[in-house]
């Protein structure tokens, strides 16, 4: 059995020492897979990403218990530039580009720790291949881009860092469905062509599960469900509960979701 690229074990994170945001989250991300991290606002998805990428110091948050291992080595508590040097690159939910730099400058400013000049040039060319629209926008200030273009630039500037593990926080937030569809496709292409591993945080379960291989559902700081994307995808209940599409009698409670057959509970029971 292959070892996971990222292993989070019983992670507990607290804000201001008192407000516990994660109550023992465990997840595994296998190499070269796309794993979806689903859940509502406040479920703890962004906190998990922050803990992994080293941004945890924001808002006085701290890893209180548990561990995070990347390629076998413990990384919890490392600062952002250290995790970036290991190959973990984050595309944040907000403030994801440098607004007063041009698109070209945004791509050029990325680090050279993991990529020499030649590798960077190749990656940059690849980025323009994946996102042809960006090529036209090279001299444009990033702050003036549309939401979709900005997300493309954010993904592109992450790729130029030569990541092994790409963390994407809320790919689809605020974007039109058409744009989201294209972006998710690109993400899948990127995974296939570059062999990158991706951990995708999404409120929109449907979007995430179209390209994910495996999925975790966070609820109030705990893993409520996990399973192969195919199984989760097939569960209309998940889509209804988390896209708010349910109405009237069709509305399921979370409890009903848990009793649904075929969906794995965290400790292996169904």
């Amino acid at each position, binding site marked *: 059995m292959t070892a996971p690229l990222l292993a989070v074990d019983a992670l507990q994170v607290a804000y201001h020492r008192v407000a516990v945001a994660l109550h023992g989250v465990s997840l595994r991300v296998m190499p070269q897979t796309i794993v979806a991290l689903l859940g509502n606002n406040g479920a703890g998805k962004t906190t998990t990403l922050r803990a992994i*990428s*080293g*941004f945890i*110091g*924001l808002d006085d948050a701290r890893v209180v218990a548990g561990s995070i291992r990347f390629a076998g080595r413990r990384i919890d508590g490392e*600062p*952002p*530039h250290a995790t*970036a*040097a290991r190959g973990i*690159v*984050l595309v*944040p939910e907000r*403030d*994801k*580009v*440098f*607004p*007063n*730099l041009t698109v070209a*400058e945004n791509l*050029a*400013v*990325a*680090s*050279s*720790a*993991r990529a020499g000049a030649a590798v960077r040039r190749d990656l940059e060319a690849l980025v323009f291949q994946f996102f042809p629209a960006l090529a036209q926008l090279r001299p444009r200030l990033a702050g003036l881009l549309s939401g979709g273009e900005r997300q493309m630039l954010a993904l592109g*500037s992450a790729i130029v*860092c030569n990541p092994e593990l790409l963390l994407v926080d809320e790919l689809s937030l605020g974007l039109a469905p058409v744009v989201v569809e294209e972006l998710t496709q690109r993400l899948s292409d990127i995974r296939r062509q570059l062999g990158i591993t991706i951990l995708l945080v999404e409120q929109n379960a449907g979007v995430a599960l179209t390209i994910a291989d495996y999925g975790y559902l966070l609820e109030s700081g705990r893993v409520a469900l996990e399973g192969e994307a195919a199984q989760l995808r097939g569960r209309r209940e998940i889509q209804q509960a988390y896209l708010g599409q349910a109405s009237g009698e069709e509305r399921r409670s979370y409890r009903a979701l848990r009793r649904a057959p075929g969906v794995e509970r965290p400790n292996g029971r169904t």
Partner: protein
Amino acid sequence: MSLQLLANVFVLAAIYALVSAGYVLVYRVSRVLNLAHGELMMVGAYFLVATTGLFAGNPLLALLLAAMCGLVMGIVVYAVLMRWMTGEAVLAAVLITIALGILLRGLTILVWTTQQFYPAAAFGWRNPPVAIAPGVRISAASLAMVFLTIVVYLALFVFLQFTRWGVRMRAAGQNPLLAEQRGIRLHGVYAFAWGLSTFTASLAGMLLALDSGVESTMATIGLKAFPAALVGGLDSLLGAAVGALIVAAAEIAAIEYVDPLLSDVVPFLVLLIILAIRPWGLFGSREQLDRV
């Protein structure tokens, strides 16, 4: 306004602009207002006093050495002191710079006493007045100051816009967290910004020293230059240049037409006016106002 007055405005504006560049560099890159900037400029001037003492026969070497010391001074100030305030509240960092200024003032007097120094005399240079137009004279050092300021601004512009380190510094100023994540080492960028800031301040201090000598109250010019940076917008170099012109024009006009005693307060009157009508300055970015 007579041509001579206009020339005086440009000379004063050059002084303010060169000093303001330092305020802008540090603020734009690390969001810290360095209120010790005037004292650092003064230390730069004293560096020249020290190097002329050592190399009186070789003015060029003395100047270069003093300028290099100025650059190193900024990096040292960051590495030893300011780096501990990175990530802390901005106000605490500003208070530390105020304390640093006081410390520097005391140290310079302890080392060099309150005596006045004239490096130009040590070189044997008389700093002659230069006629730049019929009936218009400014000192040679002042002329040099104007040219130097233009050169420095152009160099800074090219550096920030077109070089790798310059883009990194602009990125770090806009979004420090993202910069860290994209592999930009904030400590390195900040240290370099401080170094550049004290380098330009030292150049200003050295030229002022050559023009009118060095003494321990020189740092006040640094504080008077601050309104120029604020008027322009604390994170804009272009703004600092424009702000310097505005403040210098106001000050010269007030001295000439109203009351010479106003000279020290006019920059702050301009500051109050700009705070009342457009606090983020003429060319500054508005978000900065709320972030602090």
